[in-house]
């Protein structure tokens, strides 16, 4: 075991982590621990753009953006946070441009903007051009630009270090962050990083679904590390299903395709979104469009022999426009489906895409231990966190914005904290939990296989807690997950070595996914209403009287060491906008 000491440790090197690292490195001795090489993060898969009311191409302002964000989130958004997001969006985009990001340009040479789902002028009047973009590779450009600036600032990276435990020490009755424990993939060595401040920026949890746009590596490691140490997870029942994933594969096809004029059609060629969202049509918010697609499929208007998908039609758009604005997604259609999008519609289905919930934080990125108390020295930003700017449903282009605005805030806040704070003493045997976990898995002779359990988990999640949910389906999922968690105790790995043991890491990741899937299902079971991405067929309406509140899920361990989930609730911060019926 090695012990390292840094002022600030950042877990994850995607957009949020690197944006935080640029700020933290200027102000404090900082280390970034990342399970992948920095430019491998899934930020790079984001396509369509980053929202900011620059008003470069038409009238716009941050207040309209705030409203759209709150409405898009079905009023579960904390409005103070949404206001910060929309206000700071403008500088966040300009900062990236100054760092070198090659945005597409208007004829005047300013940053070009395009339409995106749920973004409107004047509180829902009509779609507005608010998404700043670089073709359909905006996430790629953000990731590259941030990495370039990390190189410029001399940010110190520990590549292929998996953070598996969050160290918390109680000082005078206050739980404080003491550091993290990481597993080095190359050597199998365990490292303890003592740090005054820790920032989680480790991304989402999408791999508990089968059809997902998420990378294989998005296994909720940060959420799981904090949750296991008794910290709450907020709003985990809210997961976004992106309307346009490649049929069966789940690979993302940007909403920018509809922003450029693409149309969703059923087997009769009908533009069905006109029925469900007369004003915004194909550019309604993602939860609305995904439900509409499944309604078409269920009512027998799906395409293909099994009627299990619909079409994204780009054939009426000029090939030059596709080449210039949507080069990557048209190539995906050619590579993976053998389809020519100039002439043929693309088969799509909703794909599990984004966790609205996560580690609860305030607007400075400080992690909450309960509804009011912060954990000194602990921060989170990006998809791992829940501020909550996305509420019950995130708007497209608001996540690339979130990682930049709140990544920056967390980086500054953490470094300022570590400048004046002292190190917190490490707990006794700080690496114990990780060492035990690794040894148990390496030496296990159990008969259960990681891949089989993961497959069963993904299948139950797709079948039972996806776009449509009922008490019965969620209960089925809860029972199945409990069974899988039990079987997980008998899981073993074939690779017993120390060097690049990805077999072992996949087993650990599965453990994280199982814990988080359970939190998601249990939180969803208790929310007896429909709101944003959480749709209960048995409770099809939003219930502001009983459920205008955030879920807070805690892991409790009884005297026998058996764990369970305790649910609590946290009020939603409402400032200027009163809940209204949501129509697009």
């Amino acid at each position, binding site marked *: 075991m090695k012990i390292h000491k840094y002022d600030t440790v950042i877990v994850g090197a995607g957009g949020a982590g690197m944006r935080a690292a640029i700020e933290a490195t200027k102000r404090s001795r900082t280390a970034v621990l990342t399970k992948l090489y920095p430019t491998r993060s899934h930020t790079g898969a984001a396509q369509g753009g980053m929202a900011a009311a620059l008003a470069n191409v038409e009238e716009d302002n941050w207040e309209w953006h705030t409203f759209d964000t709150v409405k898009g989130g079905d009023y579960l958004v904390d409005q103070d946070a949404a206001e910060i997001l929309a206000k700071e969006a403008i500088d966040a985009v300009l900062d990236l441009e100054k760092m070198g990001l090659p945005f597409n340009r208007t004829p005047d040479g300013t940053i070009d903007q395009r339409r995106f789902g749920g973004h409107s002028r004047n509180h829902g009047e009509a779609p507005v051009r608010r998404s700043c973009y670089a073709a359909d590779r905006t996430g790629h450009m953000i990731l590259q630009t941030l990495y370039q600036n990390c190189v410029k600032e001399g940010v110190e990276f520990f590549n292929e270090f998996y953070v598996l435990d969050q160290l918390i020490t109680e000082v005078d009755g206050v739980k404080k962050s003491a550091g993290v424990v990481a597993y080095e993939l190359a050597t199998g060595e365990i490292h303890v990083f003592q740090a005054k401040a820790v920032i989680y920026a480790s991304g989402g949890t999408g791999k508990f679904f089968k059809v997902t746009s998420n990378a294989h590596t998005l296994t909720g490691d940060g959420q799981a590390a904090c949750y296991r140490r008794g910290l709450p997870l907020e709003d985990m029942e809210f997961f976004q299903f992106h309307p346009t994933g490649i049929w069966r594969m789940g690979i993302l096809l940007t909403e920018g395709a509809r922003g450029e004029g693409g149309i969703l059609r059923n087997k009769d060629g009908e533009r069905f979104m006109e029925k469900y969202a007369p004003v915004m049509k194909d550019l309604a918010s993602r939860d609305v469009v995904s439900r509409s697609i499944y309604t078409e499929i269920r009512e027998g208007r799906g395409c293909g022999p099994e009627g299990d998908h619909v079409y994204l039609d780009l054939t009426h758009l000029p090939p030059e426009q596709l080449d210039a604005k949507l080069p990557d997604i048209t190539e995906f259609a050619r590579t993976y489906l053998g389809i020519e999008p100039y002439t043929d519609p693309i088969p799509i289905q909703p794909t599990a895409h984004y966790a609205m919930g996560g580690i609860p934080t305030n607007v400075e990125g400080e992690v909450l231990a309960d509804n009011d108390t912060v954990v000194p020295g602990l921060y989170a930003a990006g998809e791992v966190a829940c501020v909550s700017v996305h509420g019950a449903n995130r708007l497209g282009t608001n996540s690339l914005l979130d990682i930049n605005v709140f990544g920056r805030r967390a980086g500054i806040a953490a470094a300022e904290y570590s400048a004046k704070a002292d190190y917190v003493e490490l707990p006794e045997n700080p690496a114990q939990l990780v060492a035990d976990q690794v040894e148990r898995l390496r030496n296990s002779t159990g008969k259960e296989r990681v891949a089989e359990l993961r497959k069963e988990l993904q299948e139950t999640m797709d079948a039972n807690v996806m776009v449509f949910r009922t008490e019965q389906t969620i209960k089925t999922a809860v029972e199945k997950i409990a069974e899988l968690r039990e079987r997980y105790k008998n899981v073993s790995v*074939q690779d017993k070595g120390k060097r690049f043991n990805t077999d072992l890491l996949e087993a650990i990741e599965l453990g994280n996914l199982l814990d988080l899937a359970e939190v998601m299902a249990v939180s969803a079971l208790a929310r007896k209403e429909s709101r944003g991405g959480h749709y209960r067929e048995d409770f099809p309406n939003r219930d502001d009287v009983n459920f205008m509140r955030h879920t807070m899920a805690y892991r409790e361990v009884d005297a026998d060491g058996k764990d369970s989930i305790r649910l609590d609730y946290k009020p939603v911060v409402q400032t200027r906008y009163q809940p209204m019926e949501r129509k697009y």
Partner: protein
Amino acid sequence: MSTATLDKVEAESAASPYITVTFRIRRFNPEVSDEAMWQDFEVEIDPKERVLDGLHKIKWELDGTLTFRRSCAHGICGSDAMRINGKNRLACKTLIKDINPAKPITVEPIKGLTVLKDLVVDMEPFFQAYRDVMPFLITKGNEPTRERLQSAEDRERFDDTTKCILCAACTSSCPVFWNDGQYFGPAAIVNAHRFIFDSRDEAGEQRLEILNDKDGVWRCRTTFNCTDACPRGIEVTKAIQEVKRALITRRF
């Protein structure tokens, strides 16, 4: 199992799109042996699936020790560049049907970088060359309050080289790099090009001097391996030629 179920299984397998494919994989694990060796695996797989799906099938069902890097699985993250049937490609962007599954499909680590285990190589020299070309925007004077202006034409000038995902498929396909790891390699030059030809950047001269080095652009023998290998379709050799030309004319 009842007969009815058996019949159903048989009926399904009759219509199955699955074929048997042999993957011939270069294995190396210094914890076990100092020698690398070839190992064959047979898997039942739909040929419309990716080589990465085949590798996963082997790892998840046959041999958990098989080790490779991967993440996004659709050609964006750059983790899984490998040598497939003798050519550098991303395993997640290569469909089995496109590389003649009737014969064994060979999979090896990319060349020119030290193999650490199976298909995993040491990427550090690759990233060091990248860092050496100052891959970040450098400007002088005061920052504007709004964005810097750039015409659509100026933006288009370096569009091709912004697509790089740092997968190393190009650099590790280059015979010059195989023979001399000191050579910057195509990827570093591509990333220098991305800034040299960005109208906003003011350090083009410095980057050109770095690439004027004995291990710089002049080592390129224009074999076009890099262009063939690039999974993003970047015209790598053309970018290198443009940097060479800029060094001669000092115009960019």
